[in-house]
């Protein structure tokens, strides 16, 4: 590759990706299409709502990973909450629904804050079952919750990976000139 002397673009970043620079544009386009397709799917299925988009708008150069950071905090907390819910439900000396209610409210709150619509709705179903004092209903609701949570976690990790690749691809095309 032949570059004019005053340009600082080199072949090194291209080597990192294994692609010639001229192809990076195609990769970037493809990645953007992948991200959009995944987001559209998650919206159409009612898994995410517009609050997620609101969070995306809060990213900028100074905080490019804002959404993934917040979502990872949410996932970390969610796993604890789900474990607590399960152990409370499975406890032989079942102590009642109060403690579960507290965990549930927490879970509902942070799910809503990141736009996890389906999970929030599953929490409502859980709450309804607990209000009817139906332990079996709660168990079913919990299983649904765990399933929805796993699905969301996988999909969002996929999305964040694509976004990371986009950042890398953009960096390779337009390397920082210090």
């Amino acid at each position, binding site marked *: 590759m032949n570059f004019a002397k005053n340009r600082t673009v080199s072949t090194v970043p291209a080597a990192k990706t294994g692609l010639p620079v001229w192809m990076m544009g195609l990769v970037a386009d493809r990645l953007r299409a992948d991200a959009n397709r995944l987001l559209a799917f998650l919206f159409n299925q009612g898994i995410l709502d517009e609050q997620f988009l609101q969070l995306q708008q*809060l990213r900028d150069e100074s905080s490019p990973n804002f959404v993934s950071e*917040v979502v990872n*905090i949410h996932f970390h907390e969610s796993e604890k909450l789900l474990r607590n819910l399960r152990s409370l439900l499975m406890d032989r000396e079942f102590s009642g629904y109060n403690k579960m209610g507290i965990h549930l*409210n927490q879970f509902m*709150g942070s799910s*809503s804050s990141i736009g996890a619509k389906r999970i929030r709705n599953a929490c409502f179903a859980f709450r309804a079952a607990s209000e009817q004092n139906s332990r079996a209903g709660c168990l079913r609701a919990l299983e649904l919750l765990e399933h929805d949570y796993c699905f969301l976690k996988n999909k969002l990790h996929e999305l964040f990976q694509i976004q990371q690749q986009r950042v890398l691809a953009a960096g390779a095309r337009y390397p920082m000139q210090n």
Partner: protein
Amino acid sequence: MARIGGVTWRRTGKIDGEVHVLAVDDSLVDRKVIERLLRISSCKVTAVDSGIRALQFLGLDEEKSSNGFNDLKVDLIITDYCMPGMTGYELLKKVKESSAFREIPVVIMSSENVLARIDRCLEEGAEDFIVKPVKLSDVKRIKDYMTRDFRVGEGEEKERTRKGINKRKQRDSFDDLSSSPPSILSSPISSSSSSSPSPQSPSPSPPSIISASAPSSPPLDSPTRRLKTTSSE
């Protein structure tokens, strides 16, 4: 202070420098989100995880005196309602009971859209009530409370600076609909309502909560109309 036509204007927000918000929420996710929303809206943010810590930061806590802890004046407090220990409502009461801090506007956030709760907070002097999840438009709106001019009638500064039940009661008897009211509420449910903000009349059986997500602030009162309202009290 400028005096125009007998009305005294008083600016309560900062003219220079940034607005400093104290955010209170026990949820780490929500703290991160509100922090970011505020920072993006050019506010300085201090985020704490409980009402007790908020009081400590303000220097209101009897146990610990926070000498030098708080060098930044707080311009607004935004707090979650449901928190273990001290609720947002209790924090609101403590702030409004204190002579040093009662002027600070307090905004309540809650994931539950319960009218009784909203009314109770507004009666206690809350500036506004935001239904979670909080959006950028919500933050832009509350920022207006801190930076726009407040009109105060002559000789009534002390009463009128305190928002909440006083102002709401006054507005009850007027058809004046164009003032910038503290009771504009945002609700995710009524997403299709118009963006022109109008105050919610605090009648016993209130209608649907109006969504006012438009960042453009409502038109300010004309001085003459405001004078009329003050004279008929």
